[in-house]
């Protein structure tokens, strides 16, 4: 009882730490009973927790004994699995010694025990109260869609892509991808390509290429056989018009060289992940048409275009302030 009285007397300070590729973003929000009292964020030029960060955080920790330090898990060996059954976890999660959190009794997100220990050790000077999985952020961010749609959901961070496919709030597939690490998909593709592709330019003989017969070309040109108009109509029925309207106010940037490379890399990773979803027997395959992207980095128009044109998805991009989302989740966790 006294705890609640004391708690009501003090403001709550939420310290949210997001580690990016080369920097660390610290977002601080001070909440009183009336709502958000103040908020600020500062980006530090280091991915390690240093004295400057400590001093900055310490200044706000002093304001209230009710402070909560939240860290977004950025470990590579994390993910989400479409089961909560202890015996089935090993079937999906191919890492040992995991900590998982079950959601809706149907799916769970996980990380390694070592990753949690490592985060706790890294921020030992200020302490850590909450460690969130990107999947917790993703499922909360798209809660309105996940509950009723079958779609591919992607949380885009500078270094990571958290990909998940949900059907009516049931997870079908998930893969957490680190853009800086050569992943499994690339390795497989590279190996296959190495065997099949001729590396020597001279080996390609144009004479050996045979053109299709004229009759065959005419068959392709026969519009009636394709029944293409009907297909287009079917696709358009599955479009999320509401989301499209929301998105239309938020125009994406045009790509510069760096952004283009990154977005292309993201696209290839997503492509590979979707391929895995369809091929891997562990996952229940469903035909995915819509893609919802929670964009925390500012993806370009090209990224969307790639997904739409190459993979025939209906793509909807929502801007996501990751620090704010982490903070919101911390508040939810606290019951605010």
């Amino acid at each position, binding site marked *: 009882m006294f705890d609640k009285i004391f708690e009501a007397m*003090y403001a709550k300070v939420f310290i949210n730490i997001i580690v990016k590729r080369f920097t660390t973003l610290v977002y601080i929000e001070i909440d009183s009973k009336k709502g958000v009292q103040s908020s600020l964020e500062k980006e530090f030029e280091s991915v390690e927790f240093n004295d400057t960060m400590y001093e900055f955080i310490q200044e706000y920790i002093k304001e209230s*004994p*009710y*402070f909560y330090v939240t860290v977004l898990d950025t470990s590579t060996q994390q993910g989400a699995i479409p089961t909560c059954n202890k015996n089935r976890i090993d079937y999906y999660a191919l890492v040992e010694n995991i900590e998982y*959190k079950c959601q809706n009794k149907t799916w769970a997100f996980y990380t390694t025990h070592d990753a949690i220990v490592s985060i706790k050790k890294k921020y030992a000077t200020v302490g850590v*109260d909450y460690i*969130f999985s990107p999947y917790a952020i993703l499922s909360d961010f798209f809660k309105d869609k996940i509950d009723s749609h079958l779609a591919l959901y992607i949380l885009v961070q500078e270094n990571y892509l958290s990909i998940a496919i949900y059907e009516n709030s049931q997870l079908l597939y998930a893969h957490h991808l680190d853009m800086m690490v050569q992943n499994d998909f690339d390795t497989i593709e590279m190996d296959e390509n190495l065997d099949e592709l001729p590396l020597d330019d001279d080996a390609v003989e144009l004479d050996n290429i045979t053109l299709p017969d004229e009759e065959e070309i005419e068959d392709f040109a026969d519009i009636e056989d394709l029944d293409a108009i009907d297909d287009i109509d079917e696709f358009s029925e599955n479009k999320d018009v509401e989301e499209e309207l929301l998105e239309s106010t938020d125009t994406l940037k045009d790509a510069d060289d760096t952004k283009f490379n990154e977005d292309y890399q993201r696209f290839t990773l997503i492509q590979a992940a979707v391929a895995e979803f369809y091929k891997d027997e562990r996952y229940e395959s469903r035909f995915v048409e819509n893609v919802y992207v929670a964009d925390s980095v500012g993806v370009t128009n090209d990224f969307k275009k790639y997904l739409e044109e190459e993979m025939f998805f209906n793509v909807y991009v929502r801007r996501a302030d990751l620090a704010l989302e982490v903070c919101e989740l911390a508040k939810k966790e606290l019951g605010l």
Partner: protein
Amino acid sequence: MKYSYIEPRKKSPFTQEVQLMIAFFSITIIMLFSTYLFLLYKDYNFQKDQRSILTKQVELKKNIADMKKQIAFINKQEALGEKIYTQNSVLKDSIANLFDLVPARITLSKAKLLKNGLILYGITPNKDVYNFMLQAPLRSIFQETYSSFYPTKNGWLRFVSTNYVKDDFAQGETNSNEN
């Protein structure tokens, strides 16, 4: 916990600094309070002693008054004793003088000493012996002397001599003795 892998640390407004301050103030308050209690006890004890001393003082004063009364009484007793002693001495002398006064031929059988008189009972061989040898000195002492005789079987006379000193004379004599 629904989303986080770990439980948040227990929050309390009593941080280490606050705990230290509370401990410091608590100790100070306890010390002050114990000092206050000690002083209260001492004050109570002092007042109790004071009350007891005052009671003793009253008692002693009462005792002194009693003792003073007793001393006065004793003094009176002493004075009375001395007076009695003096009177007894006087009486003794008077009796001695009386017996000296009685001649050998007269035998006294009984003598009554009164406040202002003397009654003598005795046997005399005859009236003359009595009149000359006893009544004469008695008359010189007492203002009023009455004698009565009655004979015995052997021919001697039993006498009763009643002698009084007059009140005025006795008082005047007392006054002259006091002077």
